[in-house]
């Protein structure tokens, strides 16, 4: 599929959807409240669903409609609901300890986007990717991965780390939608169910953590037992 032939207004809309989901990742990075993370993640999933439906419509991949619906239902509703249930059971509603202030985290995030842009240009040139949307998708994918890693490394709460992992995955999914829209559907469905299992397991682990250690912050997990 070629994005060269896209009319400029469509290219604008595609880039807007991709960058808006990147922006929602920054909302997660800049906030302190677990609930905000969750809302931002749900909204981001809906945007990705819209994006894959749009790619399916304009590039002629009807199977992407199904993917869009699955994305909206699983990532937009079911996963946030599961995480919300975990949050409701815990008595933690915000990140108590910060290694890095949200403002500094935002600046580092911006730098990582610049880095991702440079890498994406290089990789796009090597792979012969044409069209700005493809390079943009690569940039958004890489920077969402970097920000996901950043969240995993600067946040202590178990929920934040689950959501950091989910962002990472969302980034890869978004990039795949645009770069390889014809990815076999079975693979995508497998990934979706994989996530479902992952979040369910995390739920069990978090509950175990809070009952056995008395906290869900990984700051307390310093003592080796064996």
């Amino acid at each position, binding site marked *: 599929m070629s994005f060269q032939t896209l009319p*400029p*207004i469509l290219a604008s809309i595609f880039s807007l959807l991709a960058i808006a989901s*990147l922006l929602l990742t920054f909302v997660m990075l800049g906030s302190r409240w677990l609930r905000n993370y969750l809302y931002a993640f749900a909204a981001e999933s809906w945007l990705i669903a819209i994006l894959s439906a749009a790619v399916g419509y304009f590039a002629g991949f009807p199977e992407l409609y199904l993917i869009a619906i699955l994305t909206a239902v699983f990532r937009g509703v079911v996963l946030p609901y599961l995480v919300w249930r975990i949050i409701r059971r815990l008595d933690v509603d915000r990140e108590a300890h910060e290694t890095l202030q949200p403002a500094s985290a*935002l600046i580092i995030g911006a730098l990582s986007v610049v880095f991702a*842009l440079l890498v994406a240009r290089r990789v796009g040139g090597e792979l012969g990717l044409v069209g700005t949307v493809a390079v*943009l998708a690569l940039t958004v994918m890489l920077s969402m991965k970097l920000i996901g890693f950043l969240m995993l490394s600067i946040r202590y709460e178990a929920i934040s780390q689950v959501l950091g992992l989910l962002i990472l995955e969302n980034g890869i999914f978004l990039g795949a939608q645009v770069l390889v829209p014809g990815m076999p559907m079975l693979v995508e469905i497998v990934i979706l169910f994989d996530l479902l299992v992952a979040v369910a397991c995390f739920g069990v682990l978090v509950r175990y953590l809070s009952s056995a250690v008395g906290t869900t912050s990984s700051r307390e997990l310093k003592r080796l037992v064996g």
Partner: protein
Amino acid sequence: MTVRDILLQVGQVLTVLLLSPLIQGVIVKFEERVQRAQGPSVLQPYRDLWKLFHKRIVVPDTASPIHWLAPVVAFTCMLTVPILIPVLTDFPLPYSDMGDILGGGLILTLGSFMILLAGLDAGGAYGGIGSSRAVMVAILAEPTLILVFIGITLLAKAMLPFVVNHLLVGDPAVYFSPAHLFLVAAFFVLLLVETDRLPIHSNTHVEVYMIEEARVLEYSGPLLGLLKWASMMKQFILFTIFCNVLTLPWGLSHQGTALGALAAAAGLVVKFVLVGCAVVFVETVQSRLRFYRYQEPLAASFLLATLAIIATQLA
């Protein structure tokens, strides 16, 4: 350079001069209405200015000539900037090629700088606090402002506000491109910071929270009137740049007839009421940030500007 163009240019300056208290009044009125209070009349700022210009001037003993100079310079700066930007017409008028976006920014900053000096000049405690806080905010806001200007320049391949206006009116693909929308969002945060609004500035002027007000505490009478008017004009000018250059570039006089200019002025009031509603919304839902969290909205704005520049690089 025709007589008509000169008249239009004078009209631009007069529009800013005469309508700026109105928009201040409208925002104050709306804010009070949202809180279910009656609120002052939208004409109250005009009455305040009238009252101030009929009062005596009291000057502190410690004041130097800067005390007299600052209000005049600040007021003149605000009269100069409207010449450079599209207030009524979408084509350049005489002398609007004196400076580009950066030039306009320089003159705006010169006005603030003079008020800052005036705050320090009389040696009062509050003036010093106000000036130091204002510099702190300016240090945080300036990098973002420069980045927004760079983003606009990269988007339009020009530093003239008229070119940006034509580009956005002519090409909806550019209007809806992420680069442009992020610039709008980044500039909106700057707009709140520069026009003394929440989340950084307090809307009640208690000594503990004062930033802009603290700098002018030593002033009285007509000099205070000039300073207040200058700050209202600054707000009007920033709103004009936000609307006519970035957000709502439509509805400017294209042929420069008297009727067109009047309609453009009326359109300007409508646009400003829209932006005013957005400002009132933010002021209603946001509480004031404490001092050590000032950098947060500005870091977000910096981030948006960075994203906008990245998006222009991809386009």
